[in-house]
């Protein structure tokens, strides 16, 4: 695709969204039969699956922690998830994303309840269109709740950025590629804690504040969708339905 002259025309983005509008979001809990917990997230063209296993016995044994459980994350992109075939397997980028995902989710788990065990999270990106790490975190939080693992709270995550000198919510691939800045944020909704904040590009202090504020509002929408997904799957339905 050619670089478009402008990313925002008449206050509308390339896909017709307003600057502070998110792509359509779909979250489903408990989609995988054999996983202990799982979730599927669609955010626009992003399609992400998360599976959770454990707490279970940790192998190799020398990685066990005698006092707490260990959280292990694996973020992986399918070779067919991007336009040009991606070489399968972990690379520099996915190793980094696995690490920040783990750190984004760790604060909500009661890891100390399961000494010497491990909780495994697998995030598989089936289709990518910018913002897969945030979609992955959103899916993983629902999958952890689906696995019944005790949690303090969910984690909601969304990206904000700057395109054509404007702060926008939830960038697409084109906006990520041709825009100035991309900033994924993950939030623990109840206590309003930021558990992931990365930035590619630059923002002034004023822009950063506006961007973070927008990210908080975006995460609130994600959080409500996560709740709804769990509610649809697990709330007791009134009889006759």
């Amino acid at each position, binding site marked *: 695709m050619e670089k478009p002259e402008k990313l925002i025309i008449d206050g509308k983005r390339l896909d017709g969204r307003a600057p502070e509008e998110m792509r359509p979001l779909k979250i489903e809990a408990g989609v995988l039969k054999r996983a202990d917990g799982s979730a599927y997230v669609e955010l626009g063209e992003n399609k992400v699956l998360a599976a959770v296993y454990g707490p279970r016995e940790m192998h190799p044994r020398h990685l066990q922690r005698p006092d707490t459980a260990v959280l292990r994350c694996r973020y992986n992109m399918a070779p067919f998830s991007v336009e040009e075939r991606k070489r399968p397997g972990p690379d520099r980028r996915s190793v980094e994303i696995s690490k920040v995902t783990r750190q984004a989710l760790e604060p909500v788990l009661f890891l100390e309840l*399961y000494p010497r065990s491990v909780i495994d999270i697998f995030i598989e990106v089936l289709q990518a269109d910018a913002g897969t790490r945030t979609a992955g975190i959103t899916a993983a939080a629902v999958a952890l709740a689906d696995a*019944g693992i*005790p949690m303090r709270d969910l984690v909601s995550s969304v990206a904000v950025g700057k395109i054509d000198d404007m702060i926008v919510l939830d960038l697409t691939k084109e906006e990520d590629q041709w825009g100035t800045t991309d900033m994924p944020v993950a939030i623990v909704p109840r206590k309003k804690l930021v558990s992931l904040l990365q930035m590619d590009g630059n923002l002034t202090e004023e822009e950063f504040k506006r961007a973070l504020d927008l990210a908080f509002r975006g995460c609130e929408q994600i959080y409500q969708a996560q709740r709804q997904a769990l509610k649809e799957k697990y709330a007791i339905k009134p009889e006759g339905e």
Partner: protein
Amino acid sequence: MGQSRKISSESEDSNLNSVGLVVKVKPMAEIKTGDFVVPGDFLATAEEFVPGEGAHEEDGKIYSSCTGVVLLDARTKRVSVFPRVSGPPSLKGGGTVIGRVEEVRDQTANVYIGVLKGHENRELPLPNLGTVHISQVQKGYVKDLHHQFRSGDIIRARVLSAQMGSIKLSTADDELGVVVATCSRCRTLLERENSKLKCPNCGNVEFRKLASDYRQGAL
């Protein structure tokens, strides 16, 4: 009661319908028995209630730590969440487990616990090593534990108690005991002959505390 619950679910729905423009569910809203909660939902203040199963206390407030339905006990002042998701299995007294005998000593047999009955599809968190004391092997007197268990046997046992670090098991019942055993000489599966086990390969005869359904394939 049912009436009031219905009203609350309606008002909650109207909050959730406006996903685009969020009307936040008031965190201090009164919660009732039967309400659906997800992890992180406010349940009560610590002055009013004690957190039970599926709930935790943080900064003087009690929040849900699992996905399920609220249970308020006004008498014991306990607020708990009855889980609607199946959580990680936890070994408690009374549960039935399947395990592998790792080591047989004079007084005890160490058992690696594989699964808890009712949670067959889920692995156990650690610690998953149990012990069967010689007095808990069967109802009568046991002279030599090596005549009841051998390392490598698959056994079914009942959990007597599971405190931090020690899980006590018992096989003193008809349906408890060894379900699969191999010959200690040639490792072929032993076949049952009344109360004895015989090796079809080398003719070796062994003794075990057998479960009533030895080698019938059922967990």
